[in-house]
């Protein structure tokens, strides 16, 4: 493993995806701001925008950084440089994750701050919000794995659609869950066992999917 090569490849991709990444970060922060405006309509619009920005960021960044390379034939150029398959895989998957996590984390951080700062906000709402954000991250990790394994725009879109449906069902089930909906209305941040279980499961799924993406990418036989 060549750390210097990994760093160079990582920074190269970070540079190439800087504008979409900042665009999604800005769009996400605006969505959070709208969510915090008074009135249920603004709250709903803000929520829909956050979900939309997160999903769009996932598709776009995977497309720009991962799926476009074989199509644009830039991958042969990069792989002609003194980098191993492992170096390439680590840099590529890391940069896709980081570019997604920057707007994702930015939104979550602002949301957390505003929940504590805005007097009208219920701090308990952070429990379902964190779970929903983590679910969106799980969905992104699945898209990433599918993109790595299939290198297909079509299959990645199918994964996005399935992820969207799952997210809708997940949000609905949380809204209907008596314990979580009760905590969301309260002004105290407590994590019930069901929420902690969900967090652990989702974290495990993220670790497994990302590990699988690394494993698959680094054992590929033919890269061009």
């Amino acid at each position, binding site marked *: 493993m060549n750390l210097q090569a990994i760093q160079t490849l990582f920074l190269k991709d970070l540079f*190439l995806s800087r504008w979409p990444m900042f665009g999604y970060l800005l769009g996400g922060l605006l969505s959070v701001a709208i969510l915090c405006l008074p009135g249920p309509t603004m709250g709903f619009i803000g929520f829909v925008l956050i979900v939309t920005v997160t999903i769009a960021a996932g598709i776009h960044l995977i497309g720009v950084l991962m799926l476009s390379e074989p199509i*644009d*034939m*830039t991958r*042969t150029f990069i792989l*002609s440089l003194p980098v191993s398959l492992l170096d390439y895989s680590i840099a590529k998957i890391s940069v896709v994750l980081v570019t997604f996590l920057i707007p994702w984390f930015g939104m979550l951080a602002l949301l957390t701050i505003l929940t504590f700062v805005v007097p009208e906000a219920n701090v308990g709402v952070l429990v379902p919000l964190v779970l929903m954000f983590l679910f969106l991250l799980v969905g992104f990790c699945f898209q990433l794995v599918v993109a790595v394994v299939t290198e297909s725009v079509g299959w990645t879109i199918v994964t996005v659609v399935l992820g969207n449906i799952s997210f809708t069902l997940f949000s609905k089930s949380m809204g209907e869950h008596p314990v979580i909906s009760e905590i969301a209305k309260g002004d105290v941040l407590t994590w019930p066992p069901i929420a902690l279980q969900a967090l652990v499961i989702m974290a495990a799924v993220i670790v497994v999917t990302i590990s699988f993406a690394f494993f698959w990418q680094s054992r590929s*036989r033919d*890269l*061009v």
Partner: protein
Amino acid sequence: MSHTLDPSLSQASTSVSMSAASLRGVSKSYKHFQLNNINLELVPGTVNGLIGPNGAGKSTTMRIMMGLVKPDSGTVSVIGQPSSSRQARVKQHIGFFSDDMRMYKSETIAWHLQLVRSFFPGWDDEYANLLLKRFGLIANQKVKGLSHGQRVKTMLLLILARHPQLLILDEPTDGLDPVAKQEVLAELMQIVNDDSRTILYSSHNTQDVQQICDTITFIDRGRVIGASDRDDFLDQWRRIKIHAPAQWQPPAIEGLKLESTFGQLRVFTLDRYAADVEAQLQSSGATVESSEGLTLEEIFIAAVARGREESQQ
């Protein structure tokens, strides 16, 4: 190196330790194509041409050498290292060009120079700047604004300024206008003068290969069908026209093959020419009208035809 249609005979003579690159019994199967038992040795300091029609397996062979495609069987060694396990280290010494290789459209030539430079400690800024001028390239120009010729020249600049020991060039002059092609070939000729460099140059244009290559390998339908020094190829292939009566039978001359008959006129090609061939034909009752050398293109076409015939038998 003597010419033979059995590649293993001519190629096995060079030891692996002396090779800039070596492929031994390399095979690779795809759904509709198979690269079959490729043996190839590149002697340091030589320019090696790899000639084959489209889809012959030239690019796959080169990609295997670069470690971009893993063979199903066989061994690959480049700069004395196994190319699969020492991929990154091996690529420090290789400059690879492929026509289906692209730079980032939204970035400039200067950005690419900076990127590639960071991977090569021996990067030569002075030479890079010289090539920029020689090729008429503008460093601040974005790749999306480059013509095909400028794109090829930029790629070659990125390869040459790192001073690689081995250059693997997959059809670098394909699609270039005559002026750009000459500029590229002239630069390659300069490199050829450096005895420490080895070049593998693939093309289906035999003229380019004839111009710069010392040794030539013909490849067709995934098989090496001939490998030899360029001059040996040119010396040993002949077209012989004879006049002979209808019942005349040709003497047993190895590599002699009847191409066509027009009445008493018969046209043969021969791939193992010897000084006494004409005398043998004369003594068998034929009258030799002419015995002339073939161009590399004619040799290539004849070799492909023979190779295909042999594989069908």
